[in-house]
């Protein structure tokens, strides 16, 4: 689906009233099937932008149009149908720890499954071959029936990406897909995502800290800093000077010295039950 942002402003949900907006006066147009990487230092508003595009958070000002309609003016049912057509992969893979990989991956297809089929799939997964194919793209075929909490952080992140392959979506919004992956796996995952998106004519928007990966795989790069668009250029035109200007005072991130901390708090344990009973 195509995206159109006009003078968009959005605030972080937990922001104090006087704090500056997370996104300011953003103008962005994406055609169907385009692939865009969003780069920028920490706090630039990349995650907030993805949340706004995924209709998880309403913009405070400006216009958002997905596929030519403003999602926040739609009635509930139409909005739900629209949501089924997009897919957001958060930075921390949203996988319940004791669930099996096959169920987690097939959950990506829930918008397209009926209620009875979804519930039946809990007892016996309805489409094992599709889940297997999706995992093979990320080199995880042998982990199909393992429990999510038995996987490493990188494997969990790849399972989160494999969910996108099963979603009936025409817009993929991926937040930091490579943060827990080693360079070889990162290249493989990136190549798989990009080629599959091109094949299916899916609009792909990914935020990345690894600028070299962004430049290597994406035709269009958007630079964000402090909630504002710094540049919106084809990858070939992004020069080292522009990058230095974008990451001014955040050079350590440009050199990938500071890894994002999010994925190290991998699976939070279920809180211990408070045992206060009358016995």
């Amino acid at each position, binding site marked *: 689906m195509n995206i159109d942002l006009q003078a968009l402003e959005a605030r972080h949900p937990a922001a104090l009233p006087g704090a500056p907006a997370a996104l300011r006066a953003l103008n962005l147009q994406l055609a169907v099937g385009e692939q865009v990487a969003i780069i920028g230092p920490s706090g630039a508003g990349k995650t907030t932008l993805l949340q706004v595009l*995924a*209709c*998880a958070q309403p913009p405070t000002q400006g216009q958002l149009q997905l596929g030519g309609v403003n999602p926040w003016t739609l009635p509930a049912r139409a*909005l*739900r*149908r*629209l*949501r*089924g057509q*997009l*897919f*957001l*992969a*958060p930075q*921390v893979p*949203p*996988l*319940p*720890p*004791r*669930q099996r990989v096959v*169920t987690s991956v097939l*959950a*990506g297809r*829930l*918008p397209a499954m009926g*209620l009875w089929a*979804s*519930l039946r799939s*809990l007892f016996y997964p309805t489409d094992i071959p599709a889940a297997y194919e999706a995992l093979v793209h990320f080199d995880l075929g042998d982990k199909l029936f393992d429990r999510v909490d038995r996987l490493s952080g990188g494997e969990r992140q790849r399972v989160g990406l494999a969910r996108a392959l099963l*979603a009936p*979506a025409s817009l993929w919004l991926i937040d930091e897909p490579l943060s827990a992956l080693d360079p070889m796996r990162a290249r493989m995952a990136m190549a798989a995502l990009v080629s599959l998106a091109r094949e299916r004519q899916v609009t792909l928007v990914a935020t990345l800290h690894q600028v070299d990966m962004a430049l290597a795989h994406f035709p269009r790069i958007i630079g964000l800093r402090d909630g504002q668009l710094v540049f919106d250029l084809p990858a070939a035109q992004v020069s080292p000077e522009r990058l230095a200007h974008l990451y001014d005072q955040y050079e350590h991130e440009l050199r990938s010295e500071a890894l994002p901390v999010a994925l190290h708090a991998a699976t*939070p344990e*279920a*809180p211990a*039950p408070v*045992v206060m*009973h*009358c*016995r």
Partner: protein
Amino acid sequence: MKPTTTPDTVSVAQAFSTEAANPPWKLPPPLFNARCRACWFTAALLVLVVASFVSLELDWAAFASMEAARSMGRFVAEFFPPDLSPVFVNKVAWAAWETLAMSALGTVIAAVLGLALAVPASRMSAQDSAWLRSPTRWLLNALRAIPELVWAALLLISAGLGPMAGTLALALHTSGVLGRLFAEAMENIPTGPGDALRTQGVGSLRVFFYATLPQVLPQLMSYTLYRWENNIRAAAVLGVVGAGGLGQLLSFHMGLFHMNKTATILAAMLLMVACVDALSFAARRWLTR
């Protein structure tokens, strides 16, 4: 500023003064300080305890006198030897099985009912209006507040004498307890998986089965097994009002003063409680491996 004096030159006036010998900041704190909340609280507690003992007019002689001790001793002596005739042990075994079945079935029904009530009683996400939350929580509190014995006495009217009333009583009371525990567990889980599915537009029932339940299931089972330990004790005594099982046998024989039979029944109760405790502990360990 008083001139410093050595001890042997303390003046007569000072020796006879009614002021404290030490400066105020060295004195021990007053026993009751009207400004201190804890003092008021302790005073209230003491008043409550004393008033309780006084108003109940307890029969202290019953505890303390020789007569009472001798009568207690005679009473305890009647328990031995316990009646171990095969016929009676068989009867006790069947009653124990009935009690075990009551507690197990009651707990299972309570878990299902509790889960069904916990869903409306919890707030699934920040956007969830959860308008059913308050009424359902009131219902759960009402179910929980009434003890199993009172439920059993009420249900005997509809269900008649026998273990079904006991099972339903256990189920109703425990569903209140479990419902509240389940709702709190469901509200405390990380919201990531549920949010991801909701962003895709998945309905709340499927979000519950695919995101909430997998995260919270081990805790739910642990709570249920822990409640089973409590319910076996409760089931053992429900029979006193006529709900079957060991309790009914106990109150029958105690009413006829068959103390050695009562001793057997008590021993069976203790044994069953110990078994269920051990089973429940082992099951909880196995589930969270």
